[in-house]
């Protein structure tokens, strides 16, 4: 954020130097009285708040977001996999059918701060599509919003299913609908978003979501087959892994091209220590499907405290693309899978946040509450 416009400039063009005159005067008086009246004399003196009413020294948002009114709870969004309406096609292929409705909705993104969002199915991020590579995906898209929208999937599909305005079905006008249909490829951690123009506005208003394609173990052998099983939600091996979906996003509440609020899964400080830290068990492997849809800032990042993780860029490989790192950065629309474990760790609060300190202090700051078990 770069917010340097001054809405309330109280002192005139001579403010600075008039004030200087004051300081000079005070210095002269100090000399005369033999006391130190000059407030700038002791430059190294630091002012530390003695208000320790908060564990983080007063930092953070004040109040509570009403999740019931929003209609979604960030603690549930983590695990809210949407497998669709599942059936089998004549050729044996799995068909997953979804209905996405674009609706305008005001959501509370920080306590007391309301944002006029555009949503898929009334939530930001939209539903987390979870499928297996090769599945047939069929999405009926109904636009009940006030502007033309599309759904553009990051994946392999024909041009006619690309969700671009001006081509094939193009932008879906308010009150209209269309069907997007394609086979889910490649396996990995992907996303979808509206591709209507102006693009920045349509994306940052909230039209995006996770599109997660599990690998099919039958296509792999040996060690890779085993790894694929842990990634595929249809296999028992997957149950031993605690999987979480996190979308890094931001909100420009005053529409000046800079985000006032940053978050994972939309709500500033939702997983902070005094809000709802994410409870995880020591014994379980942890996996985060991490997606960056932040607008206006070129990159976002995740830094895990006191631990390291393996990273699978785009999630399209079964072997890590980065090993033993504690910070990963993603450009806009970049995503990947993080795998780590807190086995043998001391139970307690482990922080993770954007290591752009600015983003962290504006809401993208969270905790794992690591417990025995």
């Amino acid at each position: 954020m770069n917010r340097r416009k001054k809405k309330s400039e109280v002192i005139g063009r001579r403010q600075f130097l008039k004030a200087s005159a004051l300081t000079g005067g005070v210095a002269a008086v100090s000399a005369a009285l033999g006391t130190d009246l000059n407030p700038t004399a002791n430059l190294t003196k630091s002012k530390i708040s003695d208000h320790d009413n908060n564990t983080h020294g007063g930092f953070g948002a004040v109040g509570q977001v009403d999740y019931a009114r929003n209609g979604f709870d960030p603690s549930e969004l983590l695990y809210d996999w949407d497998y669709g309406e599942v059936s089998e096609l004549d050729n044996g292929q799995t068909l997953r059918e979804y209905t996405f409705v674009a609706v305008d909705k005001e959501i509370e993104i920080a306590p007391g701060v309301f944002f006029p969002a555009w949503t898929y199915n009334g939530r930001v991020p939209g539903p987390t599509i979870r499928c297996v590579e090769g599945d047939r995906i069929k999405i009926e898209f109904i636009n009940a919003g006030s502007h033309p929208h599309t759904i553009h999937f990051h994946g392999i599909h024909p041009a006619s299913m690309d969700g671009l305005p001006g081509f094939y079905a193009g932008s879906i006008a308010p009150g209209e609908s269309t069907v997007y249909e394609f086979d889910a490829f490649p396996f990995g951690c992907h996303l979808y978003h509206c591709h209507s123009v102006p693009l920045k506005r349509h994306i940052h208003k909230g039209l995006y979501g996770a599109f997660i394609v599990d690998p099919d173990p039958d296509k792999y052998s040996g060690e890779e087959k085993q790894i694929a099983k842990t990634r595929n939600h249809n296999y028992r091996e997957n149950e031993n892994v605690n999987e979480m979906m996190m979308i890094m996003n931001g909100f420009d509440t005053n529409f000046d091209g800079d985000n006032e609020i940053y978050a994972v899964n939309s709500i500033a400080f939702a997983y902070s220590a005094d809000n709802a830290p994410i409870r995880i068990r020591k014994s379980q492997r942890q996996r985060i499907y991490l997606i960056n849809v932040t607008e206006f800032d070129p990159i976002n990042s995740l830094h895990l405290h006191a631990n390291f993780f393996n990273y699978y860029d785009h999630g399209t490989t079964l072997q890590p693309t980065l090993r033993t790192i504690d910070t990963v950065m993603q450009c806009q629309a970049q995503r990947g899978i993080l795998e780590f474990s807190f086995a043998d760790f001391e139970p307690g609060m482990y922080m993770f946040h954007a290591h752009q300190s600015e983003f962290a202090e504006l809401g993208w700051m969270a905790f794992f509450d690591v417990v025995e078990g």
Partner: protein
Amino acid sequence: MNNQTNVDTATRSGFPTWLMILLPFIALALLLSVFAFTDPLALFKADLPPIEDLIFQRIEIFDGGFRVDLINGGPDAVTVAQVLVDEAYWNFSMEPSQTIQPLARAEILIPYPWVETEAHEIVLLTDTGATFSHEVELAVETPSPGITEFIAYGLVGVYVGIIPVGLGMLWYPAMKRIGRKWLGAILALTIGLLVFLLIDTFLEGLEIAEQLPGVFQGEALVFFAALLTWMVLSAIGTRRGRPSPRYIAGLLALGIGIHNLGEGLVIGAAFALGEAALGSLLVIGFTLHNVTEGIGIVAPLLPFAAVGYSQEGKDRPALKLFVGLTLIAGAPAILGTWIGGFAFSPLFATIFFGIGAGAIWQVIVDVGRLLQRFAERENEATLSWMNVGGFLLGLTIMYLTAFLVSA
């Protein structure tokens, strides 16, 4: 004749006078109730978010945080949802509530580990997502009104007010000696100085007026205050007949005094709003800048300036007159730093600058007349080259010495 009768009958046979006076009010009330109940302008404001306008009145910096005084200058209630300091969400408490009604005030307390002499930015985020920001350019603890602070502020006022004016008056004997040939030029120099002060006072007033909530119409207030002051001073002057040199000198001192009060206000307020800077050399700049004011005040007192006041003109002005004039012109700066430092209000500052401008304008008129009468007596043109040169010199001295105190 016929018409006259008709009018009279119409007045008498119609409704009583009090009803006729009330009639437009009743019509107006009817119109307002139509607006209130039918909302004919609904078409224009369907679904529009409220207009929000929060104005920072004062920021007090104390050991451990900021105390922000706010006023809602907009037509709708505003709810402050979150507070950011230096682009980070921060805890805060707000009195009397987080929602401020139009024109109401509120106080926000933000515990924050601010850093001495560094800049901090406070941003208020409202429930609609709008932001209002204020930058504390150099954080230093806001002085609380104690005896030492009072003395310190007062001495700053002495530095920028009394000392330079008094120093300027020390030229009086020299001015007397150089003779009547130069008097026109000296009076013209005084006018040049006053014109500079007039423009400066207006600009300063208009700048502060900008921070007032729109409903106060701050810019108009400056002009109204100036106009009113000028009229009152003119009326007083007219009652007294042709103004005497002492009266003009007194008026000069008063006008400059109000201007210096404004300067004091700004200096004090700079501290009150958390703006303060380094550099004691600049006090000297201010002193230099205001020295010319002293010359201006005593110019009408020169013996040969007393056109038509031969009796009064022959008196040697007593020392106590000079002291009195110095206090009238300089002491308000002390008052200004006190008010600005401990009880700054943009509204009063705006009005003060307007009053100052009006007073200075009246002085320009009086000194101008004095110059004109002097020129007539000496059989010279009022706008002689010498006088124009004097005027330009006055303007130039003020302009150049202002370099020392302008950012």
